[in-house]
């Protein structure tokens, strides 16, 4: 039950070149918009044709440029949920879902399978409605039911929650996690939302400009994203280029301070998550002036500028729970940046 992808496709001013594998797990493709995430899914589904490469699913060759194999989407048994669900607007929900059973089943059986899928997702009572009469969440359930009834070998979700209001998003995410658990096979999730990815995926691939920059188990990728783009995509907001002074000292150019840490040979930027800043003295201690305090619903973000840094330096963001800042509140404050909280980055 494995998916193997190694493809290349050229566009004007953009080249998609991705290779990855996934087996009975949820792999998230995390990237900014236009990085080729959705295009990758479309290539796997057979809607787009890569210029070169290979796509294998459960040992079946879906695409192989050398062997001149390019299965039509109808024969790939790949379930792709589009960003806006792509429900057929002129058909009722019931007919839409029954469309998914077209390939495998006939007549009465088809209806039964469709009803089964709708019941499992709690939309059976909506079966005579048109898609335009459904809420966003109901539309998503209908789209999922339609895909599941087609008995796909893999489930691919293209920005599944981006079309939903934020209050619905959390609930649909929960439901989708359940669907994924019941499905039990390989799932590809395309997203630009690191929280969503963290909650849903076992494995994460970071895509930038059509390339996989980093792929690995979720926790490894989040604790060591490897590149500047990966760092930003996994939600680290403090990033600075460096000038290497020696093997254990780097001048952080954006922040205007020198940091002490065992530098890797290829590190050319550093990142610090806003939660990794610590109060008081320790490794890399700085006395800082508070440049700005930003109040979030449940936390404060305090922007710090080390006293030794020049006036035009970029402040370092530090996020903490509200009570913590209420105790610490001051115009000048001493903080330290623990070495194990500093991300070493390339690019």
């Amino acid at each position, binding site marked *: 039950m494995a998916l193997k992808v190694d493809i290349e496709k050229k566009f004007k001013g953009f080249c998609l070149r991705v290779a990855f594998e996934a087996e009975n797990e949820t792999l998230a493709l995390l990237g900014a918009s236009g990085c080729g995430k959705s295009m990758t899914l*479309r290539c796997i*589904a*057979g*809607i787009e044709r890569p210029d070169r490469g290979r796509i294998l699913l459960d040992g079946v060759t879906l695409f192989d440029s050398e062997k001149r194999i390019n299965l039509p989407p*109808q024969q790939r048994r790949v379930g792709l949920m589009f960003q806006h669900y792509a429900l*057929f607007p*002129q058909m009722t929900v019931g007919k839409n879902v029954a469309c998914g059973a077209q*390939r495998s089943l006939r007549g009465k059986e088809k209806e039964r399978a469709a009803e089964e899928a709708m019941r499992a997702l709690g939309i059976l009572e909506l079966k005579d409605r048109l898609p*335009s009469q459904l809420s966003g969440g109901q539309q998503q359930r209908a789209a999922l039911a339609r895909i599941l009834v087609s008995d796909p070998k893999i489930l691919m979700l293209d920005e599944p929650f981006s079309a939903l209001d934020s209050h619905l998003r959390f609930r649909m995410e929960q439901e989708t996690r359940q669907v994924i658990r019941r499905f039990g096979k390989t799932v590809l999730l395309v997203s630009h939302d690191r929280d969503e990815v963290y909650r849903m995926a076992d494995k994460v691939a970071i895509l930038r400009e059509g390339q996989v920059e980093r792929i690995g188990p979720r926790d490894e990728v989040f604790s060591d994203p490897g590149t500047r783009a990966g760092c930003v995509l996994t939600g680290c907001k403090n990033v600075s280029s460096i000038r290497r002074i020696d093997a254990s000292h780097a001048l952080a150019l954006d922040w205007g301070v020198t940091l002490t840490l065992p530098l890797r040979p290829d590190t050319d930027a550093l990142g610090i998550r806003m939660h990794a800043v610590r109060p008081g003295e320790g490794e890399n201690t700085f006395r800082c002036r508070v440049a700005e305090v930003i109040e979030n619903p449940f936390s404060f973000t305090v922007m710090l500028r080390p006293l030794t840094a020049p006036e035009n330096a970029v402040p370092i963001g530090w996020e903490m729970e509200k009570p913590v800042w209420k105790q610490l509140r001051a115009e000048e404050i001493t903080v330290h940046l623990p070495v194990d909280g500093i991300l070493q980055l390339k690019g």
Partner: protein
Amino acid sequence: MDLYPLWNSLRIAGISTAVIFFLGILAAYYIAKGPRWLKGVLDVILTLPLVLPPTVVGFLLLRMLGPRRPLGAFFLERFGLRLTMTWWSAIFATAVVIFPLMYRTCRGAFESFDETLADAGKTLGLSNTYIFWRVRMPACRPGILAGTVLSFARALGEYGATSMIAGYTPGRTATISTTVYQLWRTNDDGLALRWVLVNVAISFAVLLAVNLLEKRERRR
């Protein structure tokens, strides 16, 4: 009042609309899918009859279909069939004139079709034929219906090219529009006015139908 022109107008418009219905959809579907440069070239050629004066269309048609012209001569010799000056000759004229209307409205409908619906259908295993008839056509139906009704209305009112290729023979090739002209020319204003009212009534009904259709489609 001899109602032959009404009957003749209706059948000419009906037949040419039926023919153009299929030709227009076919052309629109394939051209909407085609590469951009081809779209540009074919678009100009296929839309030309819409902007040319009907007399120019009539002239060009006569150059092809007249009894001494290539196509006309061929049919006359081979099948003994005269392509001009019969009641159905007008179908050539109306068909050419309404083709762009049908083609353009259908193309607009096909182009505004959300292609991800077809993609979704394919990944679900639906055949291309099924997708065309059950997904694409229903979504494009309002545009196609509007194009058909407009084409029919325009065909009903065709005068210039029709009068050149079918002429005016009472009881044979006379249509409403050529009859009105003939009656006015012979100072029979009273009868001309009655035909004018008939024509206005039909056009009114057709346009009303278009509006009602649009409203109903929008409610869906």
